[in-house]
């Protein structure tokens, strides 16, 4: 071998025995809080319980040991599962066909926007509400679109007049999540779709909040043309410490031809069904290496079979009921910037409390985690000051909901009587409040930055 082509620096990574490894990671795992550890009301993330059966089926050797490029005759089981999953997702949303290629919600947005560009090649603007998740404007701009913000009205819904004033022949689409990030249903959704469609633009549904509607509403009937779902939210696949997720994109009939590589088709011949993969010549092209996060799709499909339509009705119903129950109880003492009854989540503001006591949303979050629970999403959506965004999901029982309220009230009282305690929290976790400024100013991003070895 030519020396020049070989590694020049010494490879130096310590090996560990199995017992050492298991002890090490088990110890680390004690210092991680998951859905299995306790209440995780992280708004917008739908941290529902992850059924055990999901993991069991995703670890079957007939899935884990299959190569994506084996002869298609030998991978019919995987293709069929993907086909049936897409069909079920279409049934739930009213869309015509879809793809499992996107690896997360944001990649779904990226894919959907590529489709919008293909379908509306002359148009350069994407509208996003001021309450939108950061990935919406980011996905639009990484796709080369200009982002124009649509304001919310006093009720927290899309301001129709503002929308009208921003619609013009350069607008390619509107990205919307419904219920929106305040947890409020966009009751004008059909009017919004009408306005957007009359303008020749397309409606994109960010399915992050689909848990509120699953089994109740096909969003195609709201006028949406393209959407992504988050299998790691609504469809109970675990979040894995940040991923892998899966962000399938589904479209109405007119847009099917633009879907990315590869589309799975069912062919029936002599009463025998087989599955094949094809691509339309109008396709936007490839957006990920193979079929996306296939094992995540397996877990989501197990969940769909377990729940079915009756189960999903109960999911959305209970998710909304739990959130509204919390909203009602907490509204007795907390300031709700938007008073309307919420859907699956709601946002309260501690701005007033901060004025009076200097206690912030961050202080609240850090105090909550001292009580064996995760914190709600904070400082999002951006239109609410000192926001706490609370999403209980349907998988929490009444005791958990009540305890959470009691705890919130306790902390509220303490904000007035002993704000120092909130400012100093957390004190029970293995580290206290973290110096994030130092982390940015003097970045240590690997063991080598501190002169050590791995």
């Amino acid at each position, binding site marked *: 071998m030519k020396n020049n082509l070989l590694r020049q620096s010494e490879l130096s990574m310590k090996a560990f025995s199995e017992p050492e*490894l298991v002890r090490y990671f088990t110890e680390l795992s004690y210092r991680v809080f998951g859905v299995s550890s306790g209440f995780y009301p992280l708004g917008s993330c739908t941290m529902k*319980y992850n059924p055990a059966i999901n993991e069991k089926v995703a670890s079957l050797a007939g899935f884990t040991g299959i190569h994506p490029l084996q002869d298609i005759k030998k991978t019919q089981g995987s293709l069929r599962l993907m086909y049936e999953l897409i069909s079920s997702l279409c049934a739930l949303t009213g869309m015509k066909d879809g793809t499992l290629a996107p690896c997360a919600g944001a990649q779904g947005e990226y894919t959907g926007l590529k489709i919008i560009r293909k379908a509306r090649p002359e148009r350069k603007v994407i509208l996003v509400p001021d309450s939108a998740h950061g990935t919406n404007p980011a996905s639009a701009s990484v796709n080369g679109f200009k982002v124009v913000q649509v304001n919310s009205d006093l009720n927290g819904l899309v301001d129709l007049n503002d929308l009208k004033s921003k619609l013009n022949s350069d607008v390619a689409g509107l990205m919307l999540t419904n219920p929106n990030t305040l947890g409020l249903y966009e009751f004008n959704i059909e009017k919004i779709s009408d306005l957007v469609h009359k303008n020749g633009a397309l409606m994109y549904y960010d399915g992050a909040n689909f848990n509120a509607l699953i089994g109740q509403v096909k969003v195609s009937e709201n006028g949406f043309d393209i959407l992504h779902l988050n299998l790691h939210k609504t469809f109970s696949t675990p979040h894995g410490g940040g991923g*892998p997720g899966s962000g399938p994109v589904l479209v109405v009939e007119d847009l099917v031809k633009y879907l990315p590589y590869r589309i799975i088709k069912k062919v029936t011949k002599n009463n025998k069904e087989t599955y094949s993969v094809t691509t339309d010549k109008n396709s936007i092209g490839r957006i990920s290496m193979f079929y996306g996060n296939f094992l*995540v799709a397996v877990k989501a499909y197990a969940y769909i079979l377990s729940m079915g339509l009756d189960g999903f009705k109960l999911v959305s119903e209970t998710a909304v009921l739990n959130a509204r129950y919390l909203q009602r109880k907490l509204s007795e003492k907390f300031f709700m910037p938007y008073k309307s009854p919420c859907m699956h989540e709601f946002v309260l503001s501690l701005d007033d409390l901060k004025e009076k006591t200097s206690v912030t949303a961050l202080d609240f979050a850090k105090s909550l985690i001292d009580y064996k629970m995760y914190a709600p999403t904070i400082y999002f959506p951006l239109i609410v000051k000192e926001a706490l965004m609370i999403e209980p999901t349907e998988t929490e029982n009444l005791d958990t909901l009540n305890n959470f309220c009691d705890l919130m009230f306790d902390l509220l009282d303490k904000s007035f009587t002993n704000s120092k305690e909130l400012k100093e929290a957390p004190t029970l976790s293995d580290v206290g409040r973290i110096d994030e400024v130092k982390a940015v100013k003097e970045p240590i991003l690997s063991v080598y930055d501190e002169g050590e070895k791995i």
Partner: protein
Amino acid sequence: MNKYIPQTEEEKLLKLKRIGLKNTSELFDGVKKSKIELANGINEQEVFSYINELSEINKKEIIFAGFGSYDHYIPAVVDKVSSIDSFLTTYTPYQAEISQGLLRVFFEYQSYIVHLTGLDVSNSSLYDVADAAVEACAISLSQKKGHASILLSGTVHPNIISCVKTWAQGLDCTVLISEVKNGKALIDKEVLPDDLALVLVQSPNVYGLIEDYTGLADIIHKRKSLFGIITDPMSLAIFRTPGEWGADISVGSTQSLGIPLSFGGPYCGFMSVKREFMRKIPGRIVGKTIDNQGRPCYVLTLQAREQHIKRERASSNICSNQALMALRNTVYLKYHGSSGLYNIADLCLKKSIYLAKELNKISGVTVPFINDLFWREFRVDFISKEIRDKVYSSLSKANICAGVKLSNLSLLVSVTEKRSEDEMSKYIDVVKRVLK
């Protein structure tokens, strides 16, 4: 009661009463309901047998296919650790104080990537190698004003090339593909465009060949352009690192390091960069700092780059990533250490050379780059498409996946440490039989 929804009828009524409603349908007042056609739920045993049946329709084979997905042995402890519930069911560690264990794991993952690639800074995962390549292109574009060109080597995996082309649609950017000579990138410095933003090459390349980039970094940097290398982190136990070639960015797939084939995903893309690009790198990054009592601890850092802060001015839209896969990589590397990893990489090298030589001896079969340096993967050419397909289907009958069909005459064959002598002999025998 639904097994996943802990609520009795009584509790439901109590909650409804508290919010002043009579029944649950009032929760959706003003929402137009749809008629939905989907079967009702089935019980867990039925779910298991149905999905198990689907898994059994798939045919497990002895895998000689690679092309971005490699059949390495995965120590059982990797599965054991990655199924620990708290790791599995937590999300992005926003609340760092109760996520220290996971943050430490990502910090170690970043350290491994930095060490393997010979660069300075790594993020804590991207979706896959194609996504990582696209993000590298995006970084280079952000360094340029106005129109820019990106040059990809013609020996980059074609799926990565397609993803970059998809990405470039609608952007002020041209994607050029370099020529290929003897299976390797031919970067002709005479024809580099003036507005060059990035040259992105791959080694081991799509044919498994190790490319020589002597002098390339200088040429590229003189053009005020970035130099990116796509690689496989396992190969870096043996071969010259992107850092040693003078690259600014390195990306790749970490699938080789403890992630099962799984019909193509979930895998994981890595990215590492020179320190000067630290604030350009997309995705989550973990940093070490101290808490309010001076104790060392970890936190997500440099977040000013990210979508939740910068929105439409963010350099990337990524939010969720492939965290659990990065955890698998970390366990795998801690298990093997340098010598373990080197030995596996070396076995891949030796076994693929062995099979390539044996196949090359068969008349009617050519391994075109047999005298060149390749790792874990090589191209095999046949005299006709018919013969190639016959070889493929005969091996298929013996439950061997022969490789990945390339153009008309070729197969791309991959041999990992997992392939036994027996399996290789069987492969050789079948090929001999077909060509007799």
